[in-house]
């Protein structure tokens, strides 16, 4: 039970990458509030432990692991530790992004190192997670593999082309993997959020005139909240109610992007 109602993810186990803060933390808290055991895979142990402490303070179950998701051995070890701790793995949420993903870069100046610094976290990690988690998600019988995408993937981004390309690629990854894993009763989807996070606030505090102009694009007049808006949407995708939804990239952005 959670708040007097049935916790819909009781007995299930989720791994959330990049859950040491921001949207990842919001997702971890939302999943735990629905009764899931949550494994927090964070690059820095201290931030992962902070998220775990918040979950435990709400009587949830959490395990924090230091994990550089761009390293295959780290991912394999995190999945193994999850099974050792909880016996199952039902949900994987790949939320981690490289720190550089928020930094503008001109397309003509991108080199291999620029590309790999972001692609290793966004793409290689998705590959490592999929490969390591598949057997467990299949065994679950109601497995969920969820990527955190971005509407930039569909409409491009003049000054953030690496991030946009990776997120565009994620849309393809989700569609193809969903078709590959459908027979195993594993759904594969992406959530494309627009949320207020620490970096967003830092940016808006630096450029206050941009805040109002940007927010005017949102029919709901505000950015999403990591836990209440984004986290709960991710948790909902994990409910049995959404077991027939797969291969989708779903905007959870207050109506920001309506071009589809």
């Amino acid at each position: 039970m959670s708040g007097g109602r049935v916790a819909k993810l009781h007995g299930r186990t989720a791994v959330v990458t990049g859950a040491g803060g921001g949207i990842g933390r919001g997702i971890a808290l939302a999943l735990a509030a629905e009764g899931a055991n949550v494994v927090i895979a964070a690059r820095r142990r201290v931030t992962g432990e902070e998220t775990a402490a918040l979950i435990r303070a709400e009587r949830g179950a959490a395990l924090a692991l230091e994990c550089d998701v761009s390293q295959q051995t780290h991912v394999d070890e995190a999945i193994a530790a999850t099974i050792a701790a909880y016996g199952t793995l039902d949900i994987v949420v790949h939320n981690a992004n490289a720190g550089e993903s928020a930094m503008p870069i001109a397309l003509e100046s991108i080199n291999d190192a620029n590309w790999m610094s972001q692609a290793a976290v966004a793409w290689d990690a998705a590959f490592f997670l999929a490969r390591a988690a598949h057997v467990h998600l299949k065994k679950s019988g109601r497995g969920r593999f969820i990527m955190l995408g971005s509407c930039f993937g569909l409409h491009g981004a003049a000054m953030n082309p690496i991030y946009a390309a990776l997120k565009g690629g994620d849309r393809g990854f989700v569609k193809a993997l969903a078709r590959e894993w459908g027979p195993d009763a594993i759904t594969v989807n992406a959530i494309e959020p627009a949320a207020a996070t620490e970096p967003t606030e830092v940016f808006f505090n630096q450029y206050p005139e941009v805040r109002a102009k940007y927010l005017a694009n949102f029919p709901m007049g505000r950015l999403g909240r990591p836990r209440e808006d984004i986290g709960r949407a991710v948790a909902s995708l994990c409910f049995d109610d959404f077991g027939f939804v797969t291969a989708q990239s779903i905007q959870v952005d207050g109506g920001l992007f309506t071009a589809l």
Partner: protein
Amino acid sequence: MNEAGTERSLEAAAGLTIFITAASPAVGVPLAAALAGTGHRVALLGDAASGGPHGAVHLPLSLRSRDALARGFAQAEERLGRAELIIHDAMPAMPAATRRVVDLSYAEWSQLTHRTVTAALYCLQAAAAHFAGRVGSVLMLGPAMALVGAPGLVPLTAALEAQRSLMKSAARQWGKNALRLNWLALADTSYPQLAAASIPAVPELGPPPPAFGRAPDLKGEIASLVAFFGSAASSALTGATLNADGGNWMVP
């Protein structure tokens, strides 16, 4: 549009100077032959194994090197003049057999994703430098399959969609420089690498797609459409995806 003098070079669909990067034997090379055969000046830049058809200049070079690409574009310009249209064949060389994600090695994953996308990136960079603020057009080609995904083709689908997004970012960034970038999605049957794939069918209960009952002819209909992207008639298009699969996936 820019100065009329520059724009005039795009007015005629015939007699274009066209550079094609990463031309595959199944798509880029026959397109080059068709374009060269209809009066266009064509250079192919890329893997030596691709070869060059009669009538086209072939410049073997590594797509892994930005410097090599820049030199290749300079050589092509020396031979044929400045390009009006640059085409990038976005489909990577790959085995025909499909592979599940769980069976892929990291080397296979990396080859299909990182190497494919960075090669496209370097071609776009070389194209922008080549046009250097003058009117120009870049067209990227890929299979329509990438719009829907297919089992056993996860890294390929990701790499193609990433390149399509890269095209849009470039269109947004370089539009003010009179450089236009677009994507042409071709029938999957144009790509023999996809022959063994389980590509999803359109959820159509009527006559089987495509609407034409056939895929467009690569050397005729598609070659003409490709040339259109080098002409002034297409000057309002940038960041667009045109689906030329004969009426299969009618999106968006």
